[in-house]
């Protein structure tokens, strides 16, 4: 009841009418002020929506690469001599992990290096990877034509190759690749399978540009001694598919222990290998991407702030211009609070109009990005709510000072103001 009387005394409807009349009286000026807020709010909505869209498209593509996946690789170091690693990951490490660590569904060792591959008409430098037959159990590729490397190819060092869709079409000029010959590092290979286009990429290489051969063939016929270190065969990466999401963490820690004992490292020393799960990679990526979104939002917030200062500027001018009106209103009985409310409602009206128009414009910009195929923007309710309330709060914040000045004027001083 008391609250009701309070709102009745504030006379919201009457004040909104007064505010609209005052704003209409200065149409151009009011429109420009609202425009400042519109741009600010639109920027917040558009940038946050685009940022969120980008975040979810990145995380979607990462999670499409396979679940429960743990990858082990030598830590790369970027130095003056190019990319090098501190320590070599040995084939025996792979064997020890598989025999010791529990919770492993499948494990795949792989060796990867750049080699020249040539068809009769073209040749190019590609990353060639030797893998075992169970590779598809840990990486989500789909065979479009032909078959994948079989266990028999592995045991008999067959010179067969499976290609990504892009490189297959490039190297054979668009001709059907299945059964064709190509040379890898001077050795003849037969194409036995081609992957379906995936469109995804894993940082450095596109999933559609892979060249996969049996690991045994890779060691024995293609890479030779370059795949050896200290007289032992090395691997570039070991991919492990854990038997369930719950054991991913224990697979990681157990694998790390095996690597430490193999390489004679104590627990205090830094492990020169990276052992990470897809979930961790996903987490890192989404953190980076959220930070980026927040950064974009902050830039947008600056424009909203500028819009708010515009409101304050206009209201200060308005208070000065209408000093006599304020004096008169007080002379016929308006209290400080009523004058304060009147001017606050005026700024709030500007801010709310700007907020609504800004949300519409910002959503339209985000939609335009989606329609143009640049990025699939995600307009979420919380973005809209955030943008709208930022506008309202800016209205209140920048409205308070001019409104306070107006309410404090002594009637006679205001009335004599020239």
């Amino acid at each position, binding site marked *: 009841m008391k609250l009701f009387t309070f709102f009745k005394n504030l006379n919201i409807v009457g004040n909104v009418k007064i505010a609209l009349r005052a704003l209409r009286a200065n149409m151009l000026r009011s429109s420009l002020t609202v425009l400042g807020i519109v741009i600010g709010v639109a920027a917040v909505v558009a940038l946050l929506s685009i940022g969120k869209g980008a975040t979810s498209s990145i995380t979607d593509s990462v999670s499409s690469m396979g679940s429960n996946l743990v990858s082990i690789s030598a830590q790369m170091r970027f130095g003056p001599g190019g990319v090098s690693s501190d320590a070599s990951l040995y084939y025996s490490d792979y064997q020890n992990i598989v025999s010791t660590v529990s919770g492993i569904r499948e494990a795949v060792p792989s060796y990867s290096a750049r080699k020249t591959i040539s068809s009769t008409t073209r040749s190019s430098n590609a990353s060639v990877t030797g893998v075992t037959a169970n590779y598809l159990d840990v990486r989500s590729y789909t065979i479009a034509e032909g078959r994948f490397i079989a266990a028999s190819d592995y045991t008999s060092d067959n010179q067969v190759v499976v290609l990504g869709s892009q490189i297959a079409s490039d190297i054979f000029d668009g001709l059907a690749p299945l059964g064709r010959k190509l040379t890898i590092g001077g050795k003849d290979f037969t194409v036995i399978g081609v992957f379906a286009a995936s469109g995804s990429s894993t940082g450095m290489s596109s999933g559609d540009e892979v060249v996969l051969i049996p690991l045994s063939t890779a060691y024995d016929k293609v890479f030779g001694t370059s795949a050896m270190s200290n007289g032992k065969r090395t691997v570039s990466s070991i991919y492990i598919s854990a038997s369930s999401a719950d054991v991913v963490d224990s697979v990681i820690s157990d694998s790390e222990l095996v690597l430490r004992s193999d390489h004679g490292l104590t627990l205090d020393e830094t492990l020169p290998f990276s052992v990470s799960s897809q979930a961790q990679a996903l987490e890192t990526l989404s953190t980076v991407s959220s930070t980026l979104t927040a950064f974009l939002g902050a830039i947008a917030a600056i424009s909203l702030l500028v819009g708010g200062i515009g409101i304050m500027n206009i209201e200060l001018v308005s208070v000065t211009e209408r000093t006599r009106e304020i004096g*008169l209103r007080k002379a016929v009985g308006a209290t400080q609070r009523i004058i304060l409310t009147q001017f606050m409602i005026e700024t709030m009206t500007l801010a709310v109009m700007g907020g609504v128009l800004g949300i519409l414009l910002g959503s339209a910009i985000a939609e335009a990005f989606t329609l143009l195929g640049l990025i699939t923007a995600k307009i979420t309710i919380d973005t809209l709510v955030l943008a709208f309330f930022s506008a309202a709060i800016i209205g209140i914040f920048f409205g308070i000072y001019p409104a306070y000045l107006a309410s404090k004027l002594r009637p006679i001083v205001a009335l004599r103001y020239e």
Partner: protein
Amino acid sequence: MIEVKDLTKIYTLGGDEVRALDGVSLKINDGEMVSIMGPSGSGKSTLMAILGCLDIPTSGQYFIDGQEVEKMNEDELAFIRAHKIGFVFQQFNLLPRTDALENVMLPLVYDGTNPKERMERAKAALELVGLGERLHHHPNQLSGGQQQRVAIARALVNEPSILLADEPTGNLDSKTGAEIIAIFQKLHRERHQTVVYVTHDPFTARHTERIIHLADGQVKSEEIVAEPLIANPFRQKDEADAKKMEVSK
């Protein structure tokens, strides 16, 4: 009834003290019609602003209907302005872009009257000052005299205990001025409205029952007018015409 005792108002202008009011005491009874006269700088406008609760005195006491005004806070002063006082300014001070009716309704917005009653009372007040036909005219569509009559209607609409006017005819020609004084006299005669106005014109002052003479921020003398003049706009007009004819001769 209003009463002030030993009222002073001191301004500081560039480090110099200016005593606009220097110990003013006076009493105005209910239903009285009083004028305040004095040369410019005598403090009459300052006195009116304090009587109208538009300004506060530096020292002294001010009672309105027994309430001590100078001790009140801002909200209480606003309440007094809304309920007890009607103020008419020399420059009319109407809100532009707002019609006569809404201008007159303004004080009722602030004293809590409901919208329907506001409308009726504002209409009645405008009829009382002879503007019943011009409710929806904006100030820029009205003559000076008509604007001042809207301002009087606005001052009357909250049925104030006291109607204060600071040089109400100062911006008007003599005929229009007489119309305004005639309205004050009618309110005084028919509704026993307490009226106090400031003027520098002895002829205008002689239309009230009592004249208070101010000089140098002090009351110099009080003069009872035995037979106040009756404002007659038509006679004023004739006199003005006669003067013009004389000049043209």
